[in-house]
């Protein structure tokens, strides 16, 4: 069963096999990059005669930014605050944010997973990483991987809750983009 609410792949001509296979490829790549849960609906339109490849997706938005208290436990200690890191994945980002906010001389890391800050203001609500921006980057990477190779003229329109990606061998003309958008709209309304 697809984890997405809607997942349609349409290919023109006698290319049912290609459409079926691209469905598998898209699932494999999105799963590899851990993006599949963040996409609600996906419409893929392939016209191999032109040739053009387009994807429109609706996102399940609302990933809150990652704060200091999400990556570790913040404790009040004598002379400041101690952060016991639970998630090392964002360690580099965390240190950068703390250095920027408090200054290097007030941030100390006695052991690998403990950071002590000499300050009276708690660091709990500082933003460590903007996961939504990271997600958008990963999504662009996934789309470039998914598009057939050689389709090197690409256009990617990213909005807060949706995206539209189109790739072709030849120059992308405004008429072509409009035509493909129309095709995808009719897939959405079908």
């Amino acid at each position: 069963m697809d984890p997405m609410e809607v997942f349609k792949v349409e290919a023109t001509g006698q290319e049912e096999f290609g459409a079926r296979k691209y469905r598998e490829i898209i699932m494999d790549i999105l799963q590899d990059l851990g993006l599949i849960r963040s996409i609600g609906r996906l419409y893929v339109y392939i016209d191999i005669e032109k040739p053009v490849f387009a994807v429109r997706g609706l996102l399940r938005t609302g990933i809150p930014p990652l704060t200091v208290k999400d990556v570790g436990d913040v404790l009040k200690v004598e002379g400041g605050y101690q952060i016991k890191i639970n998630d090392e994945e964002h360690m580099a980002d965390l240190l950068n944010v703390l250095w920027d906010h408090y200054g290097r001389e007030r941030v100390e890391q006695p052991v690998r997973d403990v950071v002590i800050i000499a300050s009276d203001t708690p660091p709990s609500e500082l933003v460590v990483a903007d996961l939504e921006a990271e997600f958008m980057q990963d999504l662009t990477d996934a789309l470039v991987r998914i598009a057939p190779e050689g389709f090197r003229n690409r256009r990617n329109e990213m909005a807060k809750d949706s995206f539209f990606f189109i790739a072709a061998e030849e120059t992308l003309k405004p008429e072509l983009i409009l035509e493909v958008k129309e095709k995808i709209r009719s897939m959405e309304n079908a």
Partner: protein
Amino acid sequence: MLEPVMFTGGVYKHDLVIELVEDLGGYVLQRNVTQSEVILLLLVPTEDQAALQALTGELRGELVRAPLAGTEVAVVTPTLAIHHLPHTACDIAEYLRRHGAKSNMIGLARGVGRDIAQITEYEAGLINEHDAVVFIFGNFAECIRKKESLYRNISVPVVVTGGPEMPASDLPYAFEYVPAVGRISHRARKATEIGTLDRIIAAVARALDRTRAEIAKDPLTTSPPRVMDAVREQVPEVEYSYSPLPIALNLNGVRVKLPFEEYKDAVEAVTFDEGVRLKEIAAIKPSRMKDYILVRILPASETGFVF
């Protein structure tokens, strides 16, 4: 008639196998030692295979037929980008290797796309040095038909793989077309996928058989394994080549992995027991692969004798 076989067993006493094969008049094509295990690619006279089988049993080894041994097969993808590698191309190359072939992976510089795909003269020349070639294409029938231009001028048999079922008449320049491969982004592990790899091997084996039949009509002056043996004996520097297979065998010659300018004369001067020198029975030219030496044995119709 020499039979290509693969011996797998322990390193301990495997030199007995090599000695036996040499005594029987066979050839050791390749010897791969991996820690305590050894894999030998051998050519053994068919009538003496029982002796080797008995020794293999004694050493607790395994002896299987390697139908592609002594051949070099190119696996060509439109580029070396993530779209084609690693899964499909590596699976096919590895499977060819397991059946005894020496497989080389080639990524074209500008092979992508439907209308813009191109092959250079150098790439075509390099592919033509192999005994057969497998072209790996994608999932769209229209693209596979259009990409015929990539292999139209290749002179060795071309096995084309792709996704959809297509009639052979759609691909007149291909030796055979194997469907159900295409662009896949996971490794071949299901029974059906392994079955497809077997079909590719069978197609390559048929292509090589056709070449063998063509060679048999005008036999080579001597056999490539014999040239390999003589070069190995008389140009000992070849053993110091960093290449895992210092002398690669083809159906119509060998590739000696030494710099052409430095060692051309030494290879030309290789002499056989019959008193014939290699340069009298073979064309020795620079290979398209690095600066190696390519030896192409002339047929009997050109030299007037066979030994």
